[in-house]
């Protein structure tokens, strides 16, 4: 009896290990995460406009139907990624996500204090190398150091009503994420 209880306790400890292992492994086996789903919109290193979320046809889950979304998957393996866009004079925001869909950095039009977005995503190592010979664009861009290999940028532009839709589309079409510093 005593030995059975000991085995039961051992089983519970093992259950804890399995629990932790499963939770940590889920992201590596998820094939419907944001990153994977974004492949359907088009190739990497360019922005793709997502169709406006409507009942029955939502490009991603739990999107705000008042926002026009555009996404760009990028990799930092070949150097920094520069994101530029000419955006409207109303609410917009941009967020940089890592491969696992964590929102690593975000800013909105007010905090950017401009309508011309110029943002560079760079790893700390690349930044250290770049400081030795800083290119002029380093002065003008908002530089974000993130320890990630790959990720995606998500642009949200507020569409107050139908009359603002064309302007929002034009703004999002101007977005580019294929450049470098």
């Amino acid at each position, binding site marked *: 009896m005593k030995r059975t209880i000991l085995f039961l306790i051992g089983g519970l400890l093992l259950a804890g290990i399995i629990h932790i292992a499963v939770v940590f492994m889920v992201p590596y086996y998820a094939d419907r995460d944001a990153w994977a789903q974004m492949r359907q919109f088009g190739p990497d290193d360019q922005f793709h406009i997502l169709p406006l979320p409507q009942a029955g046809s939502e490009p991603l889950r739990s999107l*705000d139907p008042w926002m026009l979304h555009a996404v760009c998957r990028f990799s930092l393996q070949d150097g920094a990624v520069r994101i530029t866009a000419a955006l409207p004079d109303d609410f917009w925001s941009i967020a940089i996500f890592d491969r696992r*869909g964590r929102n690593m950095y*975000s800013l909105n039009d007010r905090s950017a204090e401009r309508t011309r977005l110029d943002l560079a995503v760079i790893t700390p190592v690349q930044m250290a190398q770049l400081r030795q010979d800083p290119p002029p664009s380093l002065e003008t861009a908002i530089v974000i150091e993130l320890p990630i290999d790959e990720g995606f940028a998500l642009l949200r532009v507020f569409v107050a009503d139908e009359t603002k839709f064309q302007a929002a589309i034009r703004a999002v079409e101007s977005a580019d994420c294929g450049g470098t510093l």
Partner: protein
Amino acid sequence: MRLLFDIALAILVATTIGFSTAWLAVEHGRLFGAVNIGTWTAWPEAGGPNSDPYSVALLARSGEVPLGAGEGLAFIAVTDSDGEPLSGNCVYIVNGQTPAARLWTLTAYDAEGRLMVNPAHRSGFQSREILRHPDGSFSISVSPDVATGNWLPTARLENLQLVLRLYDTPLTTATDFVNIDMPRIDKVQCR
């Protein structure tokens, strides 16, 4: 024979409890960092750089793209202010004020976070178009049937959720959430 039985028992306990608790935690997720105001819940940290492993697993399975601290904050309600689950067969009044934000939107989703088909082609309201009371507060009728004023149509489903997104809000750290006003969700009638 006893030993074999004990080992089998231990393995059985380990696998059933280990996998079932992991599944429960990931499926119903969002275990840590919830901020509750009335019936509304937000997870200011959950989608960010300091996400806990459960939130990361949940993100991986849902494919959601959460709002960052620089963008805004989403509050979710799955029950009314009396704690009853929100149902598509009931009429609710969302009434009150929102915390400070430059812009907010209120959107109705089904239980899985999908928008609902409705003849009015409306799935939400935003702060600039809404009709307000003289004191600045607002009332929105969440109802499957046509209503006057601010009508947010729903489909006749078992479960609904309402998401209030505050864009460009100063609410970020836990201390900001003391004494803030969120609208009430009151049930009017069901059928």
